[in-house]
């Protein structure tokens, strides 16, 4: 009964959220100063997905991987390459005689294919790389992401990737409406959460806590690490496709290691091992970097007095300080390993202790 009630409340809240988003979209004109909010919501939801997928690896399986930007790039390119309308290809691939792909698939198939390709690459890379542990794994995955970036810009692959030129003119539903990235990211994050709560998720957490003990409990380390890595990359690929839509063009050079660090920061700020933490912090992070801290980059004059330091680039200084404060004083991040849930709040309100129902079959 209780479960049903929770489900109904969740569905109502989701419907309300979508309604609000739709209203905002209609009422906020691109010229108003709130227009930036829509950008933040779109980009925030995309980053939320990739942050959660990274958290699945770093926070829940204990694999410190830094290849996320690489898998996003594979996803973004896959989406762009296969969805550019056939009649636009001549123009996009102007240096490569229209490229070698001569057909186009629907946008939603492109999104799925983006995930599949990213997962496939992750599977291949995982065979050698997942033998490594901690820092070595991080270095190897980071190296892989950089190699892929260079490879995608390689002239010889031009007919497929358009070399170092950008891909554009593909359908961009995530840029047109804020609801699209919200729904796709929401569904993907829900799947990740379901997986974390399944018996496989428990095995991942066991590997994170103690590999040797996990193996002694009959958990096949190689197999489960490969699953976590592949699934995480699948969703990174999907978020890459969404990002491609959002940006309306794709260029390999934007998927650099700085992007991976941004995602890692989101995960750390939100709390390693907390899905809701990652989601909250990705919206905060994008809001700060794209919108709220923008005023720091402008010169302000109060009367005769010119505020010192405030010039282009100062935003990044302030941002770095905020990050340092978080890492020094709030090492657990916003949420730690806790989760934010409707039933938790309901329980708080009705005054029941959480202990009484923790671990109860769901």
């Amino acid at each position, binding site marked *: 009964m209780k479960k049903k009630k929770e489900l109904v409340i969740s569905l109502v809240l989701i419907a309300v959220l979508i309604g609000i988003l739709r209203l905002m979209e209609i009422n906020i004109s691109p010229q108003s100063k709130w227009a930036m909010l829509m950008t933040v919501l779109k980009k925030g939801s995309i980053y939320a997905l990739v942050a959660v997928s990274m958290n699945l690896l770093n926070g829940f399986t204990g694999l410190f991987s830094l290849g996320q930007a690489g898998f996003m790039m594979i996803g973004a390119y896959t989406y762009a390459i296969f969805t550019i309308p056939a009649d636009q290809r001549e123009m996009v691939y102007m240096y490569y005689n229209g490229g070698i792909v001569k057909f186009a698939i629907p946008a939603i198939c492109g999104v799925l294919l983006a995930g599949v390709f990213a997962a496939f690459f992750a599977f291949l890379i995982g065979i050698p790389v997942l033998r490594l542990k901690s820092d070595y794994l991080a270095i190897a995955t980071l190296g892989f992401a950089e190699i892929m970036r260079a490879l995608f810009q390689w002239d010889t692959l031009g007919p497929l990737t358009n070399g170092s030129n950008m891909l554009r003119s593909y359908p961009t539903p995530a840029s047109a409406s804020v609801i699209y990235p919200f729904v796709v990211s929401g569904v993907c994050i829900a799947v990740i959460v379901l*997986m974390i709560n399944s018996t496989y998720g428990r095995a991942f*957490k066991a590997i994170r*806590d103690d590999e040797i003990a996990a193996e002694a*409990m009959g*958990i*096949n380390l*190689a197999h489960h690490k490969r699953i976590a890595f592949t699934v995480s990359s699948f969703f990174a690929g999907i978020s890459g496709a969404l990002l491609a839509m959002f940006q309306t063009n794709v260029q390999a050079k934007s998927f650099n290691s700085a992007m991976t660090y941004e995602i890692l920061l989101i995960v750390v700020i939100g709390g390693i091992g907390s899905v809701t933490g990652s989601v909250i912090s990705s919206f905060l992070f994008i809001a700060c970097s794209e919108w709220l801290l923008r005023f720091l980059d402008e010169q302000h004059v109060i009367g005769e007095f010119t505020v010192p330091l405030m010039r282009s680039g100062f935003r990044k200084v302030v941002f770095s300080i905020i990050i340092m404060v978080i890492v020094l004083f709030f090492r657990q991040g916003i949420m730690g390993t806790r989760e934010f849930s409707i039933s938790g709040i309901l329980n708080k309100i009705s005054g029941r202790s959480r202990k009484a129902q923790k*671990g109860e079959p769901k």
Partner: protein
Amino acid sequence: MRETVLKVENVTMQFGGVIAVDNMNLVVKKGEIVSMIGPNGAGKTTAFNVITGVYPPTNGAVYFNGEKIVENHPQGKMKKLYKGENNGQYSHVLAPTPDRITKLGIARTFQNIRLFKSQTVFENILIAEHLRRTSNLFSATFHLNGAEEAQMRSEADELLHILELDDVRDEMATSLPYGKQRRVEVARALATKPSLLLLDEPAAGMNPQETDELTAFIGRIRDDFNLTIFMIEHHMDLVMEISDRIYVLDFGKTIAEGIPEEIQNNPRVIEAYLGGAVDE
């Protein structure tokens, strides 16, 4: 005649130039409690690690229920370095990972407790149920395996009940007192439904009262779960009280074997433990 559960045959484990286990031969029969004792650094835990697949032996084989589960012979650099006996007797390589060995029915605990620290007692036990899953990633993710999931949970609860750990079910595993943590670790090993249980110093760091409780506990689980138990232990009271047979290891070599009374009076054992020659 009881059937043999575990047989270690000519196992030698050499790390570089150091022989940690030297030509070990031992047999554990069904329903027995067998102990392995020896001074620190005698190679007891190494022997456990060989049996459970943490690393393959340099030479030798291990049989479980009559079936060969581990076999190795000196290879590569070890061909020249090998100083042990029986070189050339084994020619196959059979080196399963620890999870395979657990699936066969050998469970173990660790010398330094290795509980999953961010999880409750119940979740710790539940993880061990994962190895008997029939659901794949897809059906588990979308919770299509409701019956199996419910069975896992009820089995874990039942085990907690039998081992009288109900009261700490939802506590964080690492917040428990030491003796309880040991029990949880044993419970977790039992949740894999083993027929052979390896205990690595189960009484380490326990006070006399906790040790007495543990002695009773080990005897009880052997009977309740139809187990064969092979353990490493330093507490002589415990070893002498519950062991059917004892193996004594010193510098990797088995120096004595027998029932507790024989071991207590064995001059070589006394020498190994107290040092120096024994005056007759």
